[in-house]
């Protein structure tokens, strides 16, 4: 299958004392695990999967790095698949901020975000999803975001650079999942793994369990419907076990006829 992916995990941020955000622990391990799933069971060729994880010095990624990876994907699809590839995955783990009066939008904060730069260093989830859909290069779009959605300040994250209809897919199938509901927080927690303790995002932990088989339906298939149901059931349970309250927000345009498979 002609699948592509951009996977982003950001642990490092400008610190709160400089009007930034506190550092995270789980975003990078989660991004790596998601990448691992994508290039094995997920059907994404290794060369088509762009993993971007943060570094402290230099402090990365900024917006350009992520935009460049997305543009590389789009360019490869145009050059190699006649603008008609199969599936595009976009995964983001890091800090997120809710947008006033816009429950469909969320700001995905890059590493060098702080409240001075505000809008300019956060991706608008709504606008990027619109870009992935409307550019028509893929038959299927999957967007997964493990980040908070609570509003903390006046905020209008920046739109995606250019949205131009390029490919033939006018109404691609899509699956979009936020880790939490609008105006709520997403959490990371410690999990024992072998002999060590690893911090993971609650949502991504359940997501990968689901994709590795837990979300299989009675026909032993993982579909968008079964994945959505599993996340709705299990994310709150998992969060509760860790003394948090978290409910995911999923949406898709598939049904019994227009099926989207994950296995």
């Amino acid at each position: 299958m002609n699948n592509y992916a951009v996977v982003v995990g950001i642990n490092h941020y400008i610190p709160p004392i400089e009007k930034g955000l506190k550092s995270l622990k789980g975003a990078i391990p989660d991004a790596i695990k998601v990448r691992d799933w994508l290039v094995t069971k997920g059907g994404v060729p290794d060369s088509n999967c762009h993993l971007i994880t943060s570094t402290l010095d230099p402090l990365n990624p900024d917006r350009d790095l992520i935009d460049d990876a997305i543009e590389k994907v789009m360019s490869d699809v145009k050059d190699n698949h006649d603008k008609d590839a199969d599936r595009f995955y976009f995964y983001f783990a890091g800090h997120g901020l809710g947008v006033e009066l816009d429950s469909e939008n969320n700001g995905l904060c890059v590493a060098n975000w702080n409240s001075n730069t505000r809008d300019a260093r956060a991706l608008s989830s709504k606008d990027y999803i619109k870009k992935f859909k409307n550019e028509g290069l893929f038959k299927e779009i999957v967007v997964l975001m493990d980040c908070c959605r609570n509003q903390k300040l006046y905020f209008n994250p920046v739109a995606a650079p250019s949205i131009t209809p390029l490919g033939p897919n006018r109404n691609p199938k899509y699956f979009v999942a936020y880790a939490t509901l609008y105006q709520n927080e997403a959490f990371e927690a410690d999990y024992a793994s072998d002999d060590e303790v690893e911090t993971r995002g609650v949502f991504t932990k359940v997501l990968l369990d689901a994709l590795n088989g837990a979300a299989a339906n009675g026909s032993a298939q993982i579909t968008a419907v079964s994945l959505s149901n599993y996340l709705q059931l299990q994310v709150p349970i998992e969060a509760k076990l860790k003394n948090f309250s978290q409910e995911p927000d999923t949406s898709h345009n598939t049904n019994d006829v227009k099926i989207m498979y994950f296995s």
Partner: protein
Amino acid sequence: MEKSAPSPKRNKKQSGTVSKVKTGSNTIHKLTILIRETYALITKVKIFDHQFALVNDDEPISFSEEYRVYSLTSGKYVIRVIINGLFEDNEIELIKDKTCGIAYQHQQQDTEALSLPKLYSSAPLKGDLEYSTTHDYYLKPAVAISSMPENPFLKDKELKSGLFIFIHYPSKDLYQERYRSHSYWEKFSLLGSNGELIKQFPEGCIQDRDNHQWNIVKHAGYIGFRLSTKPGLYYLQYNDDQNGRIIPLYVYESWYTQFFMTVIHTPLFETIRIFLSHKLAFDPYDKYHGYIDICLNKLQNNDYSVAESLVRNIAYGKFQSPMLGLLGAYLYLSSKEVKENELFKMIVYNIQEKILKNSAESPDLWALNMLSYKHFGTTISGDESKTISGAPMLRIAFDVIRNAAVAYPWLVPEGSINDYIAENQTFDSPYNTFLPSALNAYRKATSNAIRIHDLEIFDAYNSSEDNVLMDYQEHSPFPWEKIKVNRDENQNKNLQDSLDSEKPPKKVLGLIDRKILAQRSAKLQDILKNPNELTDLSYTLLNHLTAKPNMSNAEVAKQLNMPINTISRLMKDMGL
């Protein structure tokens, strides 16, 4: 995956309309869930089958039934009961028709009671809804302190309005586990409408270590403060370098404003609850307190739908609980609903003119008029004042003012408290809270300015009290001639007339003159080379202007959803 039969169409008081149907080997059974009325509005139910498929997606907000009926095939299910974002899962096996109850008080012997999530509130509530945070060692002091005469030797019968503030830890166990010095309470103080200090806590407060017979447990971690005071605006201040905050509190004539908040060394502003009570004493059994939570959750999530039973409770409850009335009115008027227009016209009129009468200066009531104008085309009584001074208690009220001031600049005059709040607003509570720098800036600005509407002596000049004026003129340094000349000619216009006559242009003028543009571009470069300590909003302004330097103040205000005068002030401060 086995498919369940679709649920029957839900009708109110539906009874036994689903019969058993055999479909191959999949027998269909009826699952009935009975819900106590007070829980119906706050409870969501999700049912997952053994394949974790969601077999329903129950949104109780859209209907107000006290029982729900589902038709499901035989098998195991998980019934998830969700209240205020918390949930409990209940596993059942359906082999015949089954009835379950959610806090249902009339259930039969064979009705299975479902486990419910615990409810939390900073106010120690009792009654139909069971709150796990309601401890006697908070409830008793809260009731007792709220009803204490301020001076035990005097009965303050004359003033039938006042403030009650109760701040506490989630539990005594948590307090004792994390005990720090009682000096923590010194971070709180009560201020007047101009930011002047009225009381530095814990002075004047009852604390958990005081020796009162109703203080069951010492070191439970609370302070309670009660003050009989005249109607008007007050502020509760939390003084802290990292997390300082100002919280407006409005006292209405003949009502007591009761404030609750939970702290764990640092205040949890999202737990703020404010009630308006006719009675001095806090009533933990007031059934309308639970509905206030429903309204607050909906506002926090931008969910403006109002179910029929919630409308009913707002309509009846507003007389006993004006805060419920206010919140309900804000909810409805923020929506695009029209079917209850006549009812809500009556509701908002009664709130302003009868229930909270003589409170035209209340910012929350005044802001409601903006929504009334937007929804109905008229303000509530048609005679409200054009502008208001003072900050509202409700965050939605402030947001209404802020958003309206994008199009009607005079709603938030430059240098007013709301101008500074717009720059320093915080978002972690459904009530309006802001950074202390807003009040500090306002106090500094007002102490340096001559403001006609703040000068009591100017009012005296227009009154018959000439002697007062004569005495003042002898001693006052104010330039009286300038005051008379600067009088706003439109001062007498009311809000309705002003909104009617000063309609904003359909298109915001987006660009500025070339000369100003050149000056601005040069200044932007200077600022960017040597940035001084600017506020967050100033930096946001810089970001927008850097991207598009020729934007007018009006265009920037529209993009940021900020009052034009706030943008203008910040631009001036930066020399732009």
